[in-house]
């Protein structure tokens, strides 16, 4: 139904384009006046005016219709004597009514449900009809309004510009509102979590075992239960594991990435660069899950066997394997970003250094790298924030147990892994265990936000210096 409406509105308003264009042309010829804009702008003006209000109305209507019908139906069902204790049961009854209406319900249908299904069909019909009537009304109103405007030779160009600006603004608003929505949902769920678990117990606790917290309803928690789960949500092992794996990753990625960036920027001939740069960048295009099973199935077992032959106990899921593979994943980011910043160091600096007799490597070490340093630091920080936000590799290769360890051969866990572990499978949405995932998400978000901010500042400062 909606699709048909959208189609009709679109076709109708597009056809108005030609009408508006030729109409204003003829007006201008008949009355011998100069139009305020090219005829095609009057066409655009009609199109925009006839489509946008109707489409916006349709969108808003479609968002609210089900909600309103649902509340009406539930209320009528209650009036007819349906019994439900809470929201969930009400929802269940509503779903049953809907199924009966669609003819997909196979169960006992009592009289209350039957009545409700009939009134549901009635309301649905009523709403659809009024929707169509209203949309036609809106389209007609906007056609009359905009036709009157163009007959008066309005400044259609300015108006079209204004409407387009409004559309673009609305698009960016959607993006911004979505971001805000995500942040607030993280924030509110986290606040619920922190109303049960003390924030200091969370931030400084050294024990992470959320599976201990069976409590299903956070609002009805008893003090005995609280005592039981109080120290199950210690953040320290997670941040330690996350940082540790990120550190191993950086130890791999920074030297290799930086050196390959230097090679690409300073030594590689145009030919070599043209071939090897895309190859390095392919590394960035490999899905992280592929890295993940590579880490879990190849590198992890390899380390374990190698360790065994040396007489070491290496767990098959180890921080070392995860960190190593993550480091390889990050190489292209550091390499291509530092290649870019090194390339943007002005040639005149290199010339100055060569002219005084410095060799290539002296020039790179003492002039080019110091000049590019802020940018390089920025690229490393961006890579760090990728490393701590990376999920798939650590889920597959780092392990699940929250060990507080600095042994790279031991299994450890990260923030992202724990979020995955908490949220897979069926969950009670108001248990502290589930809510802790939001708290972790919020913490992770804040950490990467700070890192990205610092990194972008560093890169920007560098750009200003040489632009």
């Amino acid at each position, binding site marked *: 139904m909606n699709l048909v409406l959208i189609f009709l509105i679109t076709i109708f308003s597009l056809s108005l384009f030609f009408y508006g264009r030729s109409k204003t042309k003829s007006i201008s010829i008949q009355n011998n006046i100069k139009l305020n804009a090219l005829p095609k702008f009057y066409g655009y003006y009609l199109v925009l005016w006839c489509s946008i209000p109707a489409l916006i109305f349709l969108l808003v209507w479609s968002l609210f219709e089900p909600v309103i019908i649902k509340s009406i139906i539930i209320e009528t069902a209650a009036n007819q004597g349906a019994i439900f204790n809470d929201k969930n049961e009400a929802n269940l009854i509503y779903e049953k009514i809907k199924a009966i209406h669609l003819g997909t319900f196979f169960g006992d249908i009592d009289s209350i449900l039957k009545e409700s299904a009939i009134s549901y069909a009635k309301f649905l019909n009523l709403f659809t009809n009024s929707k169509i009537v209203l949309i036609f009304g809106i389209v007609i109103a906007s056609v009359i309004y905009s036709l009157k405007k163009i007959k008066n030779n309005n400044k259609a160009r300015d108006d079209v510009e204004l409407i387009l600006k409004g559309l673009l603004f609305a698009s960016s608003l959607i993006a911004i509102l979505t971001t805000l929505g995500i942040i607030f949902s993280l924030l509110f769920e986290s606040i619920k979590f922190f109303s049960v678990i003390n924030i200091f117990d969370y931030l400084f606790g050294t024990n992470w075992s959320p599976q201990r917290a069976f409590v299903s309803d956070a609002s009805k928690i008893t003090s005995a239960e609280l005592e039981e789960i109080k120290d199950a949500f210690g953040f320290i092992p997670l941040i330690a594991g996350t940082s540790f794996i990120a550190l191993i990753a950086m130890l791999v990625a920074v030297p290799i990435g930086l050196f390959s960036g230097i090679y690409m920027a300073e030594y590689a001939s145009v030919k070599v660069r043209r071939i090897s740069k895309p190859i390095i960048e392919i590394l960035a295009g490999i899905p992280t899950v592929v890295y993940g099973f590579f880490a879990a199935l190849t590198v992890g077992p390899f380390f374990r066997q190698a360790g065994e032959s040396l007489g070491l106990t290496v767990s098959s899921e180890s921080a070392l394997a995860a960190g190593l593979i993550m480091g390889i994943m990050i190489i292209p980011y550091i390499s291509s970003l530092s290649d870019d910043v090194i390339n943007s160091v002005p040639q005149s600096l290199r010339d100055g250094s060569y002219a005084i007799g410095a060799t290539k490597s002296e020039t790179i070490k*003492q*002039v080019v790298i*110091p000049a590019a340093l802020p940018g390089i630091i920025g690229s490393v920080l961006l890579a760090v924030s990728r490393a701590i936000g990376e999920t798939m590799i650590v889920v597959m290769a780092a392990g699940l147990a929250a060990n507080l360890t600095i042994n790279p051969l031991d299994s450890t866990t990260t923030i992202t892994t724990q979020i995955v572990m908490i949220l897979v499978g069926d969950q009670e949405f108001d248990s502290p265990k589930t809510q802790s995932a939001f708290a972790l998400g919020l913490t992770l978000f804040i950490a990467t936000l700070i890192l990205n901010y610092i990194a972008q500042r560093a890169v920007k400062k560098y750009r200003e210096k040489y632009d």
Partner: protein
Amino acid sequence: MSNIKIKSKNLNVYYGQKQALFDVNLDINEKEVTALIGPSGCGKSTFIRCINRMNDVIDICKVEGNIEIDGIEVNDKELDVVSLRERVGMVFQKPNPFPKSIYDNISYGPKIHGKGETKSELDEIVEKSLRKAALWEEVKDRLDEPGTGLSGGQQQRLCIARAISVNPEVILMDEPCSALDPIATAKIEELIDELKKTYTIVIVTHSMAQAVRVSQKTGFFHLGKVIEVGKTEKIFKNPDNKMTQDYITGRFG
């Protein structure tokens, strides 16, 4: 008559397919300022970049012919470029101080060439170079501040000090004043006058007035060829070549 310091014989330079210099024969006298003038793209800069082999940096550039400094062939593949550039310093069109402190900008060269083993020796070199570049009085209290924070004219004098720091014999200047205002230009010209007592200087310039003011000998380049070389006075007052005459009177270029 002073000695010939640099002698080029049938020098040809190519950038890829394009020939930039055609059989350039030019002698540069010791402890004198030689000015190279000519319209843009005529090969002046290309020529001076041959003297310290800076064209090596450009992949597609090919140099044929001879350039001798004190009778030693510069284009010899066996020649050590590092020690060549120690003897032949260069100052560029745009001031290009390193993103380091003023002190480190100057001490960079001496350190590379193993001069100034101790801190006090380095201090001495830095002070001497800055004094020679007439910058010492202005920066002596802020040697640890970044060189990029100086004004344009100061930056250019810093670059001259940097070139002097390794005690070269020849200083090449590629339009050293083109990015500077008249006051800073006057200071640099004064400095060049002072420096020619110690160094052989080759300066590329677009300003005839500057060539007249600072140089003893002038070479006029056009389309990669040396049209006329001679005493500055003669070139500007009474050139032999019609083309030189036209250029210096501003009829083309």
